[in-house]
């Protein structure tokens, strides 16, 4: 196989994963805010969004957006689709994080006449973030692997390059073992970096 293609392929895998994760984590905040809004319409939109997005296989979304809508490049499609899907999962992770913050603290905020938004922002959200961090991290690691689906719409990321090499050379072992190891390394790197980040976030305090 032609190993010179690997750096660029690796870069694409990293790019899809990190960009989609960035979109998902930010958009997820909006979705969870809508989900907990006092306006029923917003809540309904958020519920429909999370359920529909998560209920359809990512591969189907990729094909639908790439072939059906056809407005974006293959790479653009992958980042957008994986980003939107991640927003639905992140929103759900955030939501359970928010719900895991001891209710007593919310009552204390109310009893202390702290405006609701200030309390959510300064007391509830920081603790929810710490609770949610491990689940967000494991979603990101899952996304490293899911990003291989982008090969189907022609993004020349790791799996795509390996597949092409295997077809050309007839050797299916070398390319797939090679990219398998690269996926593994990236996942491990992400796990370690995430763990350090989480510990930093948590600092000296613990919620349980």
């Amino acid at each position: 196989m032609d190993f010179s293609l690997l750096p660029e392929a690796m870069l694409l895998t990293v790019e899809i994963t990190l960009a989609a994760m960035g979109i998902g984590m930010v958009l997820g905040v909006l979705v969870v805010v809508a989900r907990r809004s006092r306006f029923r319409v917003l809540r309904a939109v958020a519920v429909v969004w999370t359920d529909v997005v998560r209920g359809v296989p990512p591969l189907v979304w990729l094909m639908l957006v790439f072939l059906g809508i056809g407005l974006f490049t293959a790479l653009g499609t992958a980042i957008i689709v994986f980003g939107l899907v991640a927003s639905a999962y992140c929103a759900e992770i955030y939501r359970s994080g928010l719900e895991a913050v001891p209710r007593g603290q919310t009552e204390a905020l109310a009893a202390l006449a702290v405006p609701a938004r200030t309390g959510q922002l300064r007391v509830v959200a920081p603790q929810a973030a710490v609770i949610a961090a491990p689940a967000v991290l494991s979603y990101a690691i899952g996304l490293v692997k899911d990003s291989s689906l982008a090969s189907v719409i022609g993004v020349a990321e790791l799996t795509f390059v390996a597949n092409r090499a295997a077809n050309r050379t007839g050797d299916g072992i070398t390319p797939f073992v090679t990219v398998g190891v690269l996926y593994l390394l990236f996942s491990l790197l992400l796990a370690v970096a995430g763990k350090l980040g989480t510990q930093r976030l948590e600092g000296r305090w613990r919620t349980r």
Partner: protein
Amino acid sequence: MEATRPQLAVKDLSKSFGDHTVLSHLDLHLDRGEVVALIGPSGGGKSTLLRCLNQLELPTSGQVELDGQELVAYRGGRAVASSPKALQKIRRQVGMVFQQFNLFANMTAEQNIVFAQRAALGTSKDEAHARARALLDRVGLAHKAGSHPAQLSGGQQQRVAIARSLALDPAVMLFDEPTSAIDPEMRSEVLAVMRELAEGGMTMLVSTHEMGFAKQASDRTVFLCDGGILEQGPSRQLLDEPQHDRTRQFLRALAEA
């Protein structure tokens, strides 16, 4: 007349959850500076009563008056949540201390007290810190200002919670079983703070199973059971010579426990 108006008045207050009536036509007055102990069996509605006073719960009917001001708004015969502004005003005047302390886990003791003042009153940073340190000193925890709740014992956490509540300079303090979640050896440090507060003239309503505190530090004890006040009177008198069998039973069971 100013002097005769109660600081806090509960008038014909009822509260149901669904068809489960917890409080039924309850009346209770606290004079300025009065310390009232609220005793009674678990599930008797002590927490619910306290929570109706700062509107963590809305009553089903009845009224709560703070210094003559009606707190509960009604629309079409139903109690409705006060506007955020009105609610904030009520809660600045009525402090509450919880059984589980409920300190903000992501903040140090001092930050808890500073944050409350800044968020609720808009106090300046310097002033909030100065006040926080003075209050921590007052509850004997100046040396724990930089500790997070997880690093403090139950008794210490509760003293911080009391300081945090006092930081808003409330007119009335509600305590909901403030020592029930604390190891017996650590309770006295919290009770001492409360006693000092009582002696300082704070109006206090304290739900408690601490008969020692009720007898020594409260002016009046109220026995709450089955949704109403079965009897009340000067603490020493009520606790030494209760008039009702039900009260006697309750006190005997407590003494044996």
